[in-house]
């Protein structure tokens, strides 16, 4: 079985996001970029499935500008067999990303597509679900545990009410949550090995996907700040303050 893994590059988790003063975007020049943390978890899960003999090949997929190859090399260094780079100058919205994945699925015929449940830049949480709909296949979102056997995935999903277990016939789309696994660290020899692994470049325009993004972002603003409150000296003062506000 082949597994496709979505591998998005985003502003690093630890960067403090600054909105540009003119409201035209957030500052991305010179900030550290990294793999979307959820995508690292998706890739790790795919690699573990390959190590267990469930999967035979793991392919990482990225959509982005020419310099995205360096990022895809990280995915290869982590252990993916090969990478597909859909070269697109501009960021694509989730529906477009899902349509791109569908085109790649038609060509690659994977048994499983693993994606992060959301990217930590746009926080959209849409691409996996949209892809499953377009592909007319099962989706198992927010996966905290994945078991593959007998042509189906049994997935434990982290939902508001607790843990939901569902069965999905393969092929299927699984989007992963934080506690599914802990991604491995990339070792230096693996970085060297990754240099020899193939990256297929496909021009976005050649896929026949309409780049018709329906949402227009017209303004970026910094969030309303909560003002710093007061420090109280002990429990009694805290209880008195909360009682005065009618909260206790």
């Amino acid at each position, binding site marked *: 079985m082949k597994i496709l893994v979505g591998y998005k590059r985003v502003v690093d988790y630890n960067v403090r996001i600054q909105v540009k003063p003119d409201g035209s975007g957030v500052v991305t020049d010179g900030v550290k970029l990294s793999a979307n943390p959820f995508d690292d978890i998706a890739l790790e899960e795919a690699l573990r499935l390959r190590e267990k003999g469930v999967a035979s090949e793991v392919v990482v997929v990225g959509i982005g500008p020419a310099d995205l190859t360096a990022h895809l090399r990280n995915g290869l260094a982590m252990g993916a067999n090969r990478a597909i780079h859909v070269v697109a100058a501009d960021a694509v919205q989730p529906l477009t990303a899902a349509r791109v994945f569908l085109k790649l699925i038609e060509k690659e015929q994977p048994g499983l597509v693993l994606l992060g449940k959301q990217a930590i830049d746009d926080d959209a949480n849409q691409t996996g679900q949209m892809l499953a709909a377009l592909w007319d296949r099962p989706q198992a979102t927010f996966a905290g545990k994945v078991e593959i056997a007998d042509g189906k995935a049994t997935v434990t999903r982290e939902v508001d009410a607790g843990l939901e277990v569902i069965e999905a*016939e393969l092929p299927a789309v699984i989007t992963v949550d934080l506690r599914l696994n802990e991604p491995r660290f990339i070792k230096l020899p693996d970085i060297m090995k990754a240099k020899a692994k193939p990256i297929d470049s496909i021009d976005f325009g050649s896929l026949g996907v309409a780049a018709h993004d329906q949402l227009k972002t017209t303004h970026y603003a*910094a969030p309303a700040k909560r003002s710093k409150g007061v420090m109280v000296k002990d429990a009694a003062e805290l209880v008195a303050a909360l009682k005065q506000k009618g909260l206790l």
Partner: protein
Amino acid sequence: MSKILVIAEHLGGTLNSSTARAVSAAIAVKGDAIDVLVLSDAPDAIAAEAARIDGVSRVLAVARAENAHPLAAVLAPQIAKAAAGYSHVFAPSTTFGKDLAPRVAALLGVAQVSDVMSVEASHTFRRPIYAGNAIVTVEADAAHTVVATIRTASWPAAGSGAGSAPVEALVIDAALPAHTRFVALQQGGSDRPDLQSASKVVSGGRGVGSKENFDIVYKFADKIGAAVGASRAAVDAGYCPNEMQVGQTGKIIAPELYMAIGISGAIQHLTGIKDAGTIVAINKDGEAPIFEVADFGLVGDLFKIIPELEAALG
């Protein structure tokens, strides 16, 4: 002219309060009609509850055995059909709505606006990105149906009781897939208030130290009638189950009182609580970022302070 279809979230035959919050956002669109769609194997009681929400024009009830559990692959084709004639389809931005709405949007071939915080105009919304560190204004194409999830913490639940909308049975002719099957739902089964709708929440973090130590948080929460939450660090460490996680990737909540105990306040956690009315932080590290957003801060050992709080409460 806007007509909004709100997808009802329910569990165990009861309407979730997230539905009334999504109705509030629908009211803000200032449209001509707000219909609530209830998909269930037994929708009657849920539909009756939805009919009492203020501002609802009609409740549409779809009864099908396949709707016994909220599987997106099963519900989405029905919603996509029911959406004909509506300018907007809203669902709460809970795990239910997050799972379901994009599948509906893709079937309709439209984009989705996630986590709507405010409605600026019928097709203009504000939503958070980068864990709430930036707020964007987004315009959807008015030529298409707008599918959106509603950030529940940003919206009060629409009132209930005054409304008496008609309930209509709806038959949807849609072939439903059998490739996805519900197996089980393991619920915490706690008697405490629901974390997402509670007016008071007490959360514990890594500073609590262990699963056993978390009892002190539960006990204090019970004393003040609060729901219990946790930071990601506490959940990752196994102190408490996943459904208690508050933050960017857990639950986004807006209680009147939020008490963070032994939580340092990572940005991802603060994202989940910044709409709270009053934030209290108790932490032994006076430099912890949680104090930057707390209305009341108390530096010290939580194992000493919590018993003192209980004593002060009498």
